[in-house]
């Protein structure tokens, strides 16, 4: 591999990591507050759809991202409503949210654009070029500072570690978790946006393809800390970028490597990483309760 190829691979790693990064940060906020977020996948998906739709209508990627974040937050609101006041099992409700997103995006596509397979293709002016990468890096830093140095950040940490303590201190745990889940939805929505209006030029059906779950895996691998989780996202992003590069490559004898084997690479890496990760001790204590 030449120098420029390595540089190129690095660049595309940064790009394909961005959706994961936002989603992992979203998962981090939610899980730090004690709410498991299996729903990241669905939140990303509606974010991706809304972003592509808004960018198509307004012609601005910024309006697109705003739409994506709002859609993510809105669906996260449904999730929060079922798990916080209604106390649904978080894994079950999260799975349902994923199904809801998978069903509602093509249906809305049919309503709005008369197509269940995706949104119209966007011109370059309605897409991002590199901004999401920098925003992502900034959000990691901000998130770290926020939980460490501000009172709301302190509350989120306690909500996930010992919610009774927070309650006894007179702070409403439910309210803290509501806000955390909504923020989580907005971040996952931003992750979806960077998928549809940054990496791609339109929304296509089921385009998240498990990235929400990979983000969750990155969070676990990063021991629920923002910077290590971000690095784990880069690792997954690298294998995704590698997978894209390897397609069309041949074995030594000239036979092409079946594309299926290459495409499953990121999923296989996720499994290996989770299998290699031992110890549950770093999870927030009140997670899922």
């Amino acid at each position: 591999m030449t120098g420029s190829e390595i540089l190129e691979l690095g660049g595309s790693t940064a790009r394909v990591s961005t959706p994961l990064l936002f989603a992992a940060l979203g998962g981090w906020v939610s899980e730090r507050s004690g709410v498991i977020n299996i729903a990241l996948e669905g939140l990303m998906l509606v974010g991706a759809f809304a972003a592509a739709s808004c960018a198509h209508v307004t012609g601005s990627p910024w309006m697109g991202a705003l739409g994506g974040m709002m859609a993510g937050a809105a669906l996260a609101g449904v999730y929060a409503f079922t798990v916080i006041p209604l106390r649904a099992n978080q894994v079950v409700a999260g799975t349902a949210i994923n199904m809801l997103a998978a069903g509602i995006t093509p249906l809305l596509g049919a309503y709005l654009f008369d197509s269940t397979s995706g949104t119209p293709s966007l011109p370059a002016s309605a897409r991002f070029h590199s901004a999401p990468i920098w925003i992502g890096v900034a959000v990691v830093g901000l998130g770290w500072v926020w939980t460490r140095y501000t009172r709301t950040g302190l509350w989120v940490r306690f909500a996930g570690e010992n919610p009774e303590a927070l309650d006894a201190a007179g702070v409403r745990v439910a309210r803290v978790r509501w806000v955390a889940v909504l923020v989580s939805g907005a971040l996952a929505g931003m992750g979806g946006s960077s998928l549809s209006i940054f990496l791609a030029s339109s929304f296509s059906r089921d385009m998240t393809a498990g990235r929400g779950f990979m983000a969750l895996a990155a969070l676990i691998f990063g021991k629920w800390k923002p910077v290590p989780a971000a690095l784990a996202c880069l690792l997954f992003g690298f294998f995704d970028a590698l997978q894209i590069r390897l397609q069309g490559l041949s074995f030594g004898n000239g036979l092409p490597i079946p594309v299926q084997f290459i495409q499953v690479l990121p999923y296989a890496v996720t499994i290996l990483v989770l299998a290699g990760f031992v110890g549950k001790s770093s999870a927030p204590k009140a997670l899922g309760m």
Partner: protein
Amino acid sequence: MSGILKRLLQPFLAVALGLALGLGIAALGGDSAWVILKALLNSAFGSRYDFGMTLFYSAPLVLTGLSVAMGLEAGLFNIGAEGQMGLGALAAAAVGIGFPGVPWPLAPALAVFAAFLAGATWGAIPGWLRAKRGSHEVIITIMMNFIAAGVASYFTLYVFKAPHSQNSETSSVAAAYLIHPFAFFMDAPVSAALLLSLVIAGGTALFFRRTVAGYELRAVGANEMAARFAGIDVGRSQLLALTFAGGIAGLAGIPEVLSASGRFRMGFSPGYGFMGIAVALLGRRRAMGIIAAALLFGALQKGTAYLELDTQHVTRDLSQILQALVILSVSADGLWRWLKNDRL
């Protein structure tokens, strides 16, 4: 309200609520909710053929529902039924193609066995990772679904490819493998494969009621630490649960491969594996409940299949929305309390 009535009434109300919400969403497109509902019912139960198709969709759902329930009883969430089913179907087709000389009725039995084995293997991997490494089974089973799709795609396109077909499908299995559909349902491919689902449902009920392994598996799900203290091999129970769950899900492709198309077609599943989650939850993990829930979701699947034709805008994607909303309303235990305004 008396206990038993409440237990029966709650799921019904939850289903009604979920369906009402879903129809409301569907009506946003401009069709009236009433028209959509009528189209749904007509398409699911309108004729012997329609009802037959509903049953055809229900049979795999009983199995994926049982599969998810098996995991849940051990405290594990198997979202991998989709992939386990896919590989099971592929294995059944592979046997049917690879060993054409096997006589009936050994042939279909062999295919069923292969399907179970393939699904069980695919379930055992996350089971083993969970038992030995404590890996998050939800994420692992999801990833396994993607890998299963890749594996199935490879075998379909490179190994068992139908020579003259434009579609992504294998060639046909040998005739001795086919289980012929009942004539009563006209052209609907409902066959004795439906009975397989019911037999497995009865089998799992017996497993939990009568065997020590079933008791231990449930004990692990009910309280992992207490089970460990009582000397139960927790890891073995978890591995067993996901292996069985995988095997049962593996059988879910049998009606398709041996009765409907006689081959493995990529994308044959409308998401049976994921629908199994809804079936297991709504059926409260009991055999009878799962069968009833599978019928409901089978009807939903059939009912939404031609919505594009019967309505102006609504598409078959409504099915997934309805399922999701039913799961949400069924799982929201606190709804009743919340409605009674006992908020703290």
